[in-house]
């Protein structure tokens, strides 16, 4: 830019002054120097720290995923409510009111944070004696069974209203720093100068006669389902005579008259053996099954999918003999059946379709998940209303908060009293209340932000609800809250590896062979243009590649798939064939043409090869795949042999040519030396032709043999054809990876010192021998690091895999199927995930995994490259 002399604009006067005072610099110079020193040091260190900060930040963001939960506060108090058998508890979202409904029908309420008793409304049963009680999953609908055989539905809702201050009733008592009360409801101030009122609202419906009149009902359960405009309610009763009745009530609101029409159907289920004491009745909200369980642990599963003809589908002991079934219940979604035994064991059962099932409907209960056992018999079980979290307590007062999917114990609590009678989890999963028989209560404030993740659920096999077997699955969201998130990163890592693998087996040969040719054999003038073009390609935006791959390449490849496959054979065959023809050229001519005309000829041959593949594609498809490759690969027609033949052909070619050169290679060589060049060319071409013929025969025989043995490529790396598949990704990624590998490898090869080449040529070696035996081994580590860096790029590539794959998180090596890579998954799901939610953090973890993968690959490459540099310097 500037001439060095002009860079010192110091006036001569200043210089003289400086000379007069030797060793003294001007203050401004010293100051500027010091400021620059500080600024550059601070700035430089800051940038380096900032860059490394990424790693620290990512780690910090994902750490909460692996922490179970924490107790943030405990309040203990005496409620003064004593009871004999455990009541049904319910608590509102804001932890204001707790409702305790005893089995005899009496209702007590108290303030959740202080335990102060509140006035509660009561159910009026008109003097009838309650004998059984059941409730829906959310505890808002209850069913009461009476000694005279009647049942009644009831509602028990914790109602929340928002009030303006002027609607607040006068004379409220202060409960604590948040809540006020008028004796029955709890009021608390909320932002925006408003108040929230939480109160208990009861409703009791008319008597229903479902069961045989006069016989006491011993167990009842109810469920509510259906759509908002057509709610259905189901009820199942068991009376002391062992009769089981099922009733389904459907209410239909007439839109014109606004009148609700209620229709009730009742059916009798096959009876259970006399004398069985039913402890648990479960009726899922879909009302397709009824589960009855007795004290000994035998479960009777009724299939009521066809309401008119219900049948007893399965009778099974869930626990080993001698162990009593103490608790049984569903988790949210009513697919996981939790059973707690008197030996302290806790396990989850799924109803699964099993081929070997001996049950009446082909389904059977399978124990799929095992939890950390209690030391004492399990006494109670409470599912949460959010996620698959649940609580179990044992008779020694120990309470464990667990998660159904991760099988992890999130929190351990100890009531400190002998018998925990009743438990409830706050709906927002931020509190646990335990009530003892003597009225002593403990409220734990808890924080379990990410209960569903653990190392095992993220990286291990998990048996998900409704799945026939454990597996790796990624499915982060669904339409309902009852959905079980499946957050295994393994399919995504697999997708990344698959995309990288297929793109590299395509890119490495082209890039490396091209680089060797460029550095050793290409005319210098052509090299001067080829190299920058390739370098420019390296910075081609990947969104462009993705777009072309998905919208242009994918349909073309689908139509011409046979030609594409054929090109992999025809192109090398054409080149090799042309090279044998070239050998027939007289030596003088071939020496004269060996520079750019030969390169151009090679290019023309490649074009011709592609053209040939394109033209003969349909014929090839007819002969090998009966006219349609896509149908063949979907196993609609055709046998395994033709494709196996194609796969074996290159392998057998290599094997046959190796064997041939072993057997008579040297003799042929020596013989050829004795002949003229034309005869030698003819001989070697003939030899090659023979090798090709033999290898065709060998691979044909092998293919037929394998076909007989039942081997088929379909089902492994070729299978169902999808338009946006890994083959297309491999092509497109080739555009991104080839220039990188090519440029770096070419750099490494051409930086091999010239004197090595000169020495080799001086010894009489040909360029080919020099390239293969001298240059390549010297540059090998540099070439290897080029491959590693290309791999790093392929691993992290995002837009191509987002656009050109179907983004299906599946795990198979099928080259004609899609995949979902880590990077694509982040790009697709992160914009929609909630900040600091589980998915958000899991995606950060995906980012960290990607970071770690590429960082390792690149570090390795860098270390190898530095070693190579040192060695190249020494030479």
């Amino acid at each position: 830019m500037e001439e060095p002399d002009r860079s010192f604009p110091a006036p001569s006067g200043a210089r003289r002054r400086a000379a007069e005072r030797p060793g003294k610099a001007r203050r401004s110079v010293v100051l500027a120097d010091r400021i620059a020193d500080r600024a550059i040091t601070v700035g430089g260190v800051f940038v380096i720290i900032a860059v490394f900060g990424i790693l620290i930040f990512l780690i910090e963001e994902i750490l909460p995923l692996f922490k179970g939960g924490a107790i943030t506060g405990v309040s203990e108090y005496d409620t003064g409510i004593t009871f004999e058998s455990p009541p049904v508890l319910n608590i509102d979202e804001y932890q204001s009111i707790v409702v305790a409904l005893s089995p005899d029908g009496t209702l007590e309420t108290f303030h959740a944070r202080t335990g102060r008793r509140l006035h509660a409304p009561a159910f009026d049963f008109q003097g009838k004696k309650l004998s059984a009680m059941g409730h829906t999953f959310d505890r808002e609908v209850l069913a009461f069974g009476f000694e005279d055989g009647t049942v009644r539905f009831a509602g028990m809702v914790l109602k929340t209203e928002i009030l303006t201050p002027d609607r607040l009733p006068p004379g409220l008592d202060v409960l604590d720093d948040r809540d006020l009360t008028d004796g029955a409801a709890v009021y608390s101030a909320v932002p925006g100068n408003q108040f929230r009122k939480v109160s208990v609202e009861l409703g009791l419906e008319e008597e229903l006669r479902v069961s045989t009149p006069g016989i006491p009902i011993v167990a009842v359960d109810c469920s509510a389902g259906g759509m908002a405009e057509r709610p259905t309610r189901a009820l199942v009763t068991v009376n002391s005579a062992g009769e089981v009745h099922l009733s389904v009530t459907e209410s239909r609101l007439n839109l014109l008259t606004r009148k609700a029409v209620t229709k009730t159907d009742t059916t009798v289920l096959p009876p259970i053996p006399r004398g069985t004491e039913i402890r648990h009745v479960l009726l899922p909200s879909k009302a397709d099954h009824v589960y009855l369980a007795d004290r000994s642990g035998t479960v009777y599963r009724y299939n009521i999918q066809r309401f008119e003809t219900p049948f007893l589908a399965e009778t099974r002991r869930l626990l080993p003999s001698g162990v009593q079934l103490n608790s049984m219940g569903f988790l949210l979604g009513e697919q996981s059946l939790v059973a707690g035994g008197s030996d302290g064991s806790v396990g989850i059962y799924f109803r699964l379709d099993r081929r070997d099932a001996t049950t009446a409907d082909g389904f059977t209960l399978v124990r799929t998940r095992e939890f950390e056992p209690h030391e004492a018999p399990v006494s109670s079980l409470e599912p949460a209303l959010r996620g698959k979290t649940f609580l179990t307590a044992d008779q020694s007062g120990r309470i464990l908060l667990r998660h159904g999917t991760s099988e992890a114990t999130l929190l351990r609590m100890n009531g400190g009293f002998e018998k925990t009678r009743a438990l409830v989890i706050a709906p927002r999963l931020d509190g646990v209340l335990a009530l003892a028989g003597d009225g002593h209560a403990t409220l734990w404030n808890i924080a379990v932000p990410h209960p569903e993740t653990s190392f095992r659920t993220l990286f291990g096999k998990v048996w998900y609800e409704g799945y026939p077997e454990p597996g790796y699955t990624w499915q982060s969201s669904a339409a309902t809250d009852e959905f079980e998130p499946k957050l295994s990163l393994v399919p995504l890592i697999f997708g990344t590896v698959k995309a990288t693998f297929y793109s590299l087996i395509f890119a490495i040969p082209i890039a490396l062979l091209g680089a060797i040719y460029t550095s050793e054999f290409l005319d210098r003038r052509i090299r001067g243009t080829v190299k920058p073009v390739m370098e420019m390609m390296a910075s081609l935006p990947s969104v462009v590649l993705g777009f072309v791959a998905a919208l242009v390449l994918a349909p073309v490849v689908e139509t011409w798939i046979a030609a594409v496959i054929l090109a992999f054979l025809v192109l090398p065959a054409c080149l090799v064939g042309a090279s044998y023809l070239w050998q027939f050229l007289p030596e003088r001519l071939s020496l004269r043409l060996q520079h750019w005309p030969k390169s151009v000829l090679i290019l023309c041959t490649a074009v011709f090869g592609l053209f040939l593949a394109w033209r003969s594609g349909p014929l090839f498809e007819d002969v090998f795949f009966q006219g349609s490759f896509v149908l063949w690969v979907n196993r609609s027609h055709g046998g395994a042999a033709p494709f196996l033949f194609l796969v074996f052909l290159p392998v057998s070619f290599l094997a046959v040519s190796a064997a041939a050169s072993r057997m008579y290679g040297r003799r042929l060589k020596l013989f050829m030396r004795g002949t003229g060049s034309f005869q030698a060319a003819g001989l070697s071409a003939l030899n090659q032709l023979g090798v090709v013929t033999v290898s065709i025969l060998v691979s044909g025989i092998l293919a037929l043999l394998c076909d007989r043995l039942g081997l088929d490529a379909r089902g492994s790396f070729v299978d169902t054809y999808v338009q946006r598949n890994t083959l297309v990704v491999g092509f497109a990624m080739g555009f991104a990876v080839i220039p990188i590998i090519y440029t770096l490898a070419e750099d490494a090869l051409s930086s091999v010192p010239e004197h090595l080449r000169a020495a080799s040529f001086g010894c009489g070696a040909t360029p080919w021998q020099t390239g293969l035996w001298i240059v390549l081994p010297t540059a090998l580590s540099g070439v290897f690091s080029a491959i590693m860096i290309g791999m790093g790029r392929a691993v992290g590539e995002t837009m191509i895999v987002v656009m050109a794959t179907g983004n299906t998180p599946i795990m198979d090596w099928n080259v004609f199927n899609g995949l979902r890579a880590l990077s694509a998954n982040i790009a697709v799901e992160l914009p929609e995930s909630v900040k600091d939610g589980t998915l958000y953090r899991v995606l950060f973890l995906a980012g960290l995994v990607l970071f770690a993968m590429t960082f390792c690959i690149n570090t390795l490459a860098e270390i190898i490259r530095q070693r190579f540099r040192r060695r190249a310097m020494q030479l």
Partner: protein
Amino acid sequence: MYKSITFALTRTATAADQTAEAVKYIRRKGRSDLSARGEPFLWGLGGALAFGMLMIFGFLALIVWNGLVTFYPKPVQVVTLSDGTLLAGEPSRSEVYKPGPQVLEHLDEPARQAIAAEHGYARRTLFRTGNFDLYNEDFRWASDFSIVSVAEPADVYFIERIEWGPFVGFIRSLNLKGETVSGAALTRQILEEAHRRAVQRRELIREIEREEIGAVNHRLNSERLKLKRIALKQGENSDTYRQAAAESLALQETLQGRYHDLARDAQAVKAEDAQYTVTLAEIGGRGKTIPLSQVVRFTLPNDMSFFEKIRLYLSRWLEFLTDEPREANAEGGVMPALFGTFVMTVLMALAVAPFGVMAALYLREYAKQGKLVSVVRICVNNLAGVPSIVYGVFGLGFFAYICGGTIDRLFFPERLPNPVFGTGGLLWASLTLALLTVPVVIVATEEALAAVPQSMREGSLACGASRWQTIKYIVLPRALPGIMTGLILAMARGAGEVAPLMLVGVVKLAPELPLDGFFPYIHLERSFMHLGFHIFDVGFQSRNSEAGKPMVFVTTLLLISLVAFLNATAIVIRNRLKRRFLIGHF
């Protein structure tokens, strides 16, 4: 592997008999043998390079060709199909496909035989028929075997509209405020004059709605926020608040009045505009009446001279470069995306240049060269290879949520819970990309610094210059071209990067540009549009990817030209640098 090769080498070398043979042979014939020339392998190597070059040039040719021809007017063909239906449209592309068995069943014998002769392949053409509002599709395939005749009538119009994509058909009549012009009276002059007026009205409406009403809305909003700010700071019961509330109320009323006036004006123009309509008819005779102002341009593609075509071509390019997108980005222009890309790249360069150079200076000139620095150097090198999406994740989590969230809480409490900086935006996108490209700049700058000979530094220091003086006057000027190369390469990478931007602030349609007439004029918190994301969005998320495809090709061409331009600049600078300071470094 290396070992085995050297082993092979020694083995060949020590095979004494072979050497003797070779010497004998060379004496006798003076020729090398064929296996030493390795001709088949050479051809294989060359073939790989040729294939690579073919891939690249094919790709570039595809993009450039499709990008360039998109705006060139194509003839509109009227095709009579064998079932008697008429079809009018631009032939957009043709391909070879395999007709299914159901299709073959309904064919007559000669056609079936013709297909069988081609191994079951047949050719078909995709016609851009337009008229989405009538047909519910933009494109239709017509197989060659089903086409009876093709005509190119001179009077068929290709009409580009604001909504519903193009219309292909005829103009039946023009309705100018109750006065109907049709038939021979409907000359090109009348049409163009009426259209010119309609376009003026459309722009007037736009100006009122976007500019003037926009300004009023902006003031109303800022008044409201000002009041809220006072309320938060002083409390709603303070005197300041009451005073401000009273003032604000008065102002708001005036603004509301102004708003209503403007809205009435706009309504009046719209009512006037609705009286000028054009009635169109598609090829099958179905009519459609649309306001004249909905038409972007009328063209008679089959009745145009070459120069008219070139003029149309250029005017379409102009529209593409300067206009806003319409039809879910599938038509119109890309000006906001181009502008967004430009602003973001410039901001990124501003952020990355000082920090990258500073870090490199520190590593090369200040830090003690030891184990630690070489480890740091390896790591910095590696960071250039960390996937861009990881930077996007970091940008979203750290910049947008943590930094932006803090800024919002401190400076914009009145807007909460709506985020200002606490979500993706221009600033965060630029910073994320700056972080992504800082290793590139560090590496390039370091190499450039290393290329300055140590003797020059020593000479400067020996003359009594301080370290900073040496750097400033001796080292940096020589390293500058190298630094510029690195910076330009970083900009090229940043301009083409899309994946991280999807997380930190790029949107498919930004209602406002990041630069406008309201204080503080440049709005770094706004989300923006980007050419790369535009490609992704139009290609993958539009109503019909086929309809968006031409647009994507043009956008792609634009983006590639931008990146290639930056890269070419870097290469030119590098070459000049190499010539200037002929100092090799490995």
